[in-house]
């Protein structure tokens, strides 16, 4: 019996779940409310996010979130009855996540 390679996907999925739950609400609060309300200066936010560490963090959050979503979508679709297509579904979901991560990289490191 072959050892499953699912740990790779599951660990990225879990990491994505953690950053999504912790950081995305904070990001929405800052970019969606505090900056428009001028409670946080846009310039400061921009400075943080253009620092190499800030860029890396932004890329991390975005790419892990994509992977988390892809993994969840893959399992939901299979659980909902598309079992026969589980292979193509997995490939399509993770390819989309990789595409999303690549896009995030071009934005974060531009």
């Amino acid at each position, binding site marked *: 019996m072959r*050892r499953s390679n699912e740990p790779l996907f599951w660990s990225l999925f879990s990491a994505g779940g953690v950053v999504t739950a912790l950081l995305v609400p904070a990001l929405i609060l800052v970019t969606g409310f505090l900056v428009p309300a001028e409670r946080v200066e846009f310039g400061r936010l921009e400075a943080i996010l253009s620092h190499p560490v800030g860029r890396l963090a932004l890329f991390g959050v975005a790419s892990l979130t994509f992977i988390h979503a892809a993994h969840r979508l893959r*399992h939901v679709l299979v659980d909902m009855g598309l079992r026969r297509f589980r292979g193509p579904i997995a490939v399509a979901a993770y390819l989309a996540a990789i595409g999303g991560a690549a896009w995030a990289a071009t934005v974060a490191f531009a």
Partner: protein
Amino acid sequence: MTQAPSDATTIRLEIARYRPEQDERPVLERYDVPYRHEWVVLDALNYLKDHIDGTLSYRWSCRMGICGSCGMMVNGVPKLTCSAFLRDYLPGPIRVEPMANFPVERDLVTVLDDFMEKFQAVKPWIIRDGEQPLEEGEYRQTPAQLADFKQFSMCINCMLCYAACPVYQHEDEFLGPAVLALAQRYNHDSRDQGKGERQELIWSDEGIWDCTFVGECSAVCPKHVDPAGAIQQAKVESTVGWYRSFLAPFGRG
């Protein structure tokens, strides 16, 4: 929660009957049985069998939530019928069906072969490389070592968690909640040395990885075993083992 005794005198049961010699598929049949405030669904079934229709088939033994043999679907939810009070289902009717996700043998009796096979496959016993000599005394455990697996050892093999699991419903291969909790029960026992033997199966695609952490197993478990938690724990351990196997390809994962 205790309610005041109701003035109901009878309650209606809708029982799934399946008599392979006459029924093509299970059919619901209705019976009115006396209502007693202190009766459980199993008491009503026993009354029905003794006084109304002696051909009804179902399993039970202890009447006290310990043997694990009286599991059925009560109004669509997996329950130990010896612990499900009629008064919680007033005014009725109460629908009683065989446990979901298992083939039906007859009436409320299910075929358990699949569970029994998987149960044995995880080697649910203490495995040791060798016994220590008698003069060294018993294998002692600290309270912390006991706490590490005690909850998983409370399982009574009632299989309610299988009846509740939407993954087991469509993945025949999936080892399922109770069996995986049982594997953790031995893997986490300080006296056991069989983790390596169990891992191959548990860490395979058929082992833990079909589980999507729906959590229904833990919700219906009458013994608070928390099989969903056990599976999550096994996933973490398997993931650590997977990464470690790259660092030390020849070490024991």
